[in-house]
């Protein structure tokens, strides 16, 4: 995973709440067996509409998605994170994220930032007024800044450290194998197993 320390880019205002993962990437696009190429499916239904914000030339190269509340609800598909990343997004800002989507994004290096709804709305207005407004996301200092604004955001120390180091969770857990071994020795015998097959 690429290290994430700071990112500077422009934003795109997605003025919709409850953007579920079926909107981010519809199920028909989930049949690929790779992690790449999902950008075609990103917001597929909405992108048919020329008025849709992602189709507007001034937002073409944006890397910071500023969305309404409850972003990423619904299906656990990590393809939603891949589609956003494959398209070029590095950061998503919203006042509320669904739990599974947020977990997936932070595992995969797509930084999801929670700001107050009033701050999100102010950002929408600023971006709409001047689409070229640079937005700086500083993970080390936990701030989002644009124009004269400098907004702090919360993220737990562990996740921040892991993203800044670009570390893979599995590698970290495998260092704890002794703990897993000793836990398994104490597991009760009545816990079910899938093998051998009983039917």
């Amino acid at each position, binding site marked *: 995973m690429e290290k994430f320390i700071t990112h500077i880019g422009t934003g795109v205002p997605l003025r919709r709440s409850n953007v579920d993962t*079926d909107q981010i990437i519809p199920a028909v696009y989930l049949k690929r*067996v790779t992690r790449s190429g999902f950008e075609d499916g990103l917001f597929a239904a909405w992108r048919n509409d020329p008025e849709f914000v992602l189709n507007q030339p001034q937002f073409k190269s944006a890397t910071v998605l500023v969305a309404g509340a409850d972003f990423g609800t619904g299906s656990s598909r990590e393809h939603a994170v891949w589609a956003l990343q494959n398209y070029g997004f590095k950061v998503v800002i919203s006042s509320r994220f669904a739990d599974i989507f947020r977990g997936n994004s932070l595992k995969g290096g797509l930084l999801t930032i929670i700001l107050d709804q009033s701050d999100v709305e102010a950002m929408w207005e600023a971006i709409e007024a001047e689409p070229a407004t640079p937005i700086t996301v500083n993970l080390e200092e936990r701030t989002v800044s644009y124009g004269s604004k400098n907004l702090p955001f919360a993220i737990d120390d562990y996740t921040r450290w892991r993203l800044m180091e670009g570390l893979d969770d599995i590698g970290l857990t495998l260092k704890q194998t002794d*703990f*897993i071994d000793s836990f398994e020795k104490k597991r009760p015998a009545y816990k*079910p197993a899938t093998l051998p097959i*009983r039917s």
Partner: protein
Amino acid sequence: MGKTLAEKIWAEHVVRQADGEPDLIYIDLHLIHEVTSPQAFDGLRLAGRSVRRPDLTIATEDHNVPTMNIDKPIADPVSKLQVDTLRANCAEFGLRIHSLGDKDQGVVHVVGPQLGITQPGMTIVCGDSHTSTHGAFGALAFGIGTSEVEHVLATQTLPLQRPKTMAINVEGSLKPGVTSKDIILAIIAKIGTGGGQGYVIEYRGSAIRALSMESRMTVCNMSIEAGARAGLIAPDQTTFDYIKGKPHAPEDFDPAVAYWKTLFTDSDAKFDVEVDLNADDLEPFVTWGTNPGQGLPLNAVVPNPADFADSEQRTAAERALVYMGLEAGTPLKKIAIDTVFLGSCTNGRIEDLRAAADILKGKKIASSLRMLVVPGSARVRLEAEAEGLDKVFLDAGAEWRNAGCSMCLGMNPDQLAVGERSASTSNRNFEGRQGKGGRTHLVSPLVAAATALRGTLSSPADL
């Protein structure tokens, strides 16, 4: 202070705890399917890693599979590749798989419980958000993404932040014609699609205790639609009786039951939040909009967006009515339906099929619509056929299909056409969920059956 049920299960599965780090939690059962696993297996191969516990892992084919002509190769080459990839991965890593044609193939959340492999006090994960279904047994069960699937395959653990706890107390008794689906739709309408974010929900109260296991699964299944990654119900005699005799029920049953009986929320435990719902007042519930929180009793009318005080909700309602092609003020019962879908991990179990068949028996569905009946698993299908339910559905004019996720998410050929309107026993009414441009109303199996007969959204009482 005592512990809640969720806290007890969590504590029993902590492998390692360290300040400033998430808890490392042991996973008792990992369910996998074709859609969210291929990239995880690729990751294992790239890193030269193996599956730590093949004996705690089980795969089935569900999201993508056709529900017709299953003896022939899958027609869609991309779907076929995904299913073939799952089969090859399971063969390579030595994992148990129930493929199309096998009697234990079916929707992953129907398969686990019917095998008796879902048991109280377990931690259960799957790359599917409706893993919350298994919480009905008093297990801590939740959906994960593909990175986490890979993590569990490699380590049988997950690093997790401890969730907060929410109690939803449902007291009273349901009127005839009102089901557990109506309970959960009413809960979601009450707390909203984000209401459960960050929480594990425990469903409690006399109305919950009175539910059958399969009805409890319907409630827990849709916890995610309320924003909660997991929802659970304390196990009791109903749970133990359901597991007994299932293929993977504990051979030494009594010690297991003795442990299961310790799985309840202590009387002095404290939840972070409590919500109350009165079951006596509930009516059959139906959604009118494009998220599962946009629901109302069937006797209501399509709401007027102007009546929403909250501007976000107002905008969402305006958008939803445009997408759904509905006028404010229209009685919900006047809405004409094109397709009735009976199935899914929410309502594709034998009790759901029995309840619907009971209403359809000896009658014909409206000529204006089609009805798809898709059993949750091949075993449910066989059971239904043994009871003659297939004949009831076929005689009524419905289609009797093979098992899979089918029209719940429209990944296989079972989809709505643009503008087509469904009454669906599934779990999500998102834009395009059941097919691009399709319009979904979420309903219980009873409402689905009554609607099939009348052609408009209806409850059994309308017949």
